[in-house]
C-alpha cells in the first residue's frame, strides 16, 4: 500500500543532513558545553555554531537566541517572562483568539496572577486585523502576542503591519513563529517584533531543539530557575544534539526556502483544487492566499474528523483534524470556531500538511482516496441522510 504522510504540522522527518550533523553528538562528542576541558570545548563550539545558524535564519544576532526544549516552552517563557518583567508598568496583555494553547493558557495563568487579557477576534479567514489589535491596546498594555502563522489553517498574520501600528513606544510585541519559521521568510527586523518563538521540529529539525529570540535590551524573567546556562535565562544542561540539529535545520531551511515554497505551494494548490472539486460540501478553511505553502485545510460536512482520519489511515494516508473527537479534551478547534465555522462543520475539519518528501503522486492519491472515504462515512451519517431528505423534500 502507498504511504502518504501529510501531517507535517505534527511531526516532520529529519533532513538527512540534520541527522548526520547530530550523530557525532550522540557518540564521541558528548561533552557538556560548560565544562573546562577538551570534551566541553567540542560541545561549546557546536552550541555556538548552532546559535549563529538559528540567528541567521531569522535575521537576529546569536546573543539574542535562547535555546528551549520546545515551541511550547518558548511561548511560555515569552508570554509569562515578558509580561512579568513589566508587571510594575501595567498588567494588561493582548493576544489573538487563534493563538496556540501554549499562548492561550499562559495568558490564562497570567490572568490568575492579576493580569487582564484581551482577545482580538479574527475574520472568516483567520486574519487578525491590525485595526482590531490597536483597538485593544491600552495605556497599561505591556505585551501583545500575535502569532506569525496559524498551525491549524495556515493563515499568515500581518505581524509587520501590527508592529508598525504599535509603533516604537508601544508595548512589547511577541510573535509565535513556530509554524512559520523555516517555512516562509521570517526576519525579526522586518517583522519589527521584540521576541519570536520557533521550533526545529516544524522544519525538519529535531524535537527538543527550539528557541526564543529576544531583542537585545528587552527584559524578560526566566521561566525556570537554576544554573547559568543560556546566560541564566534558560538553565539546565544544554541538549547539544538537539541544538546542533536545530542549527543545521535552520541552515538547510534558509538555503532551500524559495524552492521549497514554490514546490509546496504548487502541490497544495493541486490538492485544494482536487479536494474541493471532488468532495461535495467541502470548504477551504483559512486564507485562500496568505497561507503557509504546505497547508491545505478543509471542513467536510456531515461527517466527523476522527473517522475520516481512521479510514485515510487504512489507505496509508496520514493527516490531522481539529474535530472534538480527535482532541483529548473533546473540544472542537478554537481556531475554527473563532473564524466563525459552526460547531457541526468544525467536526469535519481536515488538515493536510505537505512536507519535503511530498510529491504529485501523493497528492493524486489523496485526491483519489479522500472522496471514497467521505462517501463511505456519509453513507452511514444520519446528518447526511437528513440533508438529502430535506433537499429532496
Amino acid at each position: 500500500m502507498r504511504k502518504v504522510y501529510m501531517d507535517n504540522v505534527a511531526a516532520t522527518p529529519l533532513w538527512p543532513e540534520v541527522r548526520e550533523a547530530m550523530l557525532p553528538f550522540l557518540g564521541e562528542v558528548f561533552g557538556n558545553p560548560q565544562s573546562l576541558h577538551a570534551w566541553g570545548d567540542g560541545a561549546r563550539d557546536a552550541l555556538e555554531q548552532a546559535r549563529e545558524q538559528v540567528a541567521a535564519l531569522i535575521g537576529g544576532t546569536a546573543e539574542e537566541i535562547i535555546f528551549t526544549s520546545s515551541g511550547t516552552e518558548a511561548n511560555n517563557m515569552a508570554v509569562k517572562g515578558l509580561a512579568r518583567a513589566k508587571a510594575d508598568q501595567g498588567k494588561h496583555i493582548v493576544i489573538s483568539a487563534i493563538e496556540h494553547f501554549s499562548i492561550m493558557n499562559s495568558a490564562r495563568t497570567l490572568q490568575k496572577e492579576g493580569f487582564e487579557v484581551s482577545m482580538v477576534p479574527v475574520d472568516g479567514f483567520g486574519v487578525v486585523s491590525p485595526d482590531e489589535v490597536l483597538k485593544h491596546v491600552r495605556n497599561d498594555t505591556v505585551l501583545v502576542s500575535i502569532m506569525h502563522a496559524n498551525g491549524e489553517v495556515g493563515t499568515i498574520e500581518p505581524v509587520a503591519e501590527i508592529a508598525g501600528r504599535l509603533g516604537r513606544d508601544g508595548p512589547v510585541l511577541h510573535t509565535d513563529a513556530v509554524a512559520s519559521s523555516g517555512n516562509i521568510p521570517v526576519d525579526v527586523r522586518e517583522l519589527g517584533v521584540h521576541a519570536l518563538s520557533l521550533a526545529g521540529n516544524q522544519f525538519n529539525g529535531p524535537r527538543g531543539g527550539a528557541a526564543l529570540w529576544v531583542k537585545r535590551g528587552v527584559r524578560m524573567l526566566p521561566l525556570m530557575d537554576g544554573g547559568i546556562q543560556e546566560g541564566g535565562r534558560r538553565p539546565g544542561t544544554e541538549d547539544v544534539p538537539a541544538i546542533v540539529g536545530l542549527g543545521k535545520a535552520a541552515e538547510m531551511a534558509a538555503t532551500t526556502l524559495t524552492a521549497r515554497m514554490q514546490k509546496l505551494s504548487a502541490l497544495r494548490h493541486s490538492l485544494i483544487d482536487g479536494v474541493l472539486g471532488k468532495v461535495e460540501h467541502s470548504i477551504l478553511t483559512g486564507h485562500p492566499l496568505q497561507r503557509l505553502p504546505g497547508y491545505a485545510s478543509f471542513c467536510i460536512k456531515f461527517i466527523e474528523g476522527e473517522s475520516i482520519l481512521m479510514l485515510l489511515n487504512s489507505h496509508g494516508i496520514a493527516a490531522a483534524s481539529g474535530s472534538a473527537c480527535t482532541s483529548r479534551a473533546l473540544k472542537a478547534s478554537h481556531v475554527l470556531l473563532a473564524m466563525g465555522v459552526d460547531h457541526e462543520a468544525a467536526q469535519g475539519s481536515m488538515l493536510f500538511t505537505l512536507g519535503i518528501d511530498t510529491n504529485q503522486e501523493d497528492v493524486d492519491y489523496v485526491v483519489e482516496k479522500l472522496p471514497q472515504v467521505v462517501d463511505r462515512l456519509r453513507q452511514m451519517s444520519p446528518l447526511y441522510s437528513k440533508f438529502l431528505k430535506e433537499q429532496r423534500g
Partner: protein
Amino acid sequence: MPVYSEKVMQHFMNPHNVGEIENADGVGEIGNPVCGDMMTFYIKVKDNRLEDVKYKTFGCGAAIAVSSIVSDMVKGKTLEEALTVTPAMVAKELEGLPKNKLHCSNLGAQALRKAIKNYALSHKVDMPGLTDTEEPEEDEHACET
C-alpha cells in the same frame, strides 16, 4: 490511532447492520453533531423481539464501533433482554474503550433504549420502567463546548 482494541477496529472498518429501516417500528436518536457524536437507531419488532436493528452514526471511530456492536448484541433478542444492555457491557464486548471515549458506549445503549421506547409508546405497549419514566438527560461528557 486512539488506542482502540482490535475489536473496535474490526467493527469500525466493517460495521454491521448500517442503514435505515423504512417504516421502522421504533426510532431513537441521540447525541448532537455539535458535540461530535450522533446516532439514530431503527428497530423492527416482531413477537416482542428485535427482528431487525439498523442505525446511522455520525462520529468518531468508537461511536461507529459502538453502534455496530450494539446492533449485533440485541438483534433477535426480546425487548426486555435488549433493555438489559448497559454501557459497561458494550465497552466490554468491544474489549475496552479509551477513557475519553467511554461516553460513546452510553450513547449506543441510550439510542437503542430510545428506539424501544419510541416503539412502545407508538404501539401502545406497556413496558414498566421504560414507558412510565422520563428518559435520563443525555450523557453530558460528550459535549463541553
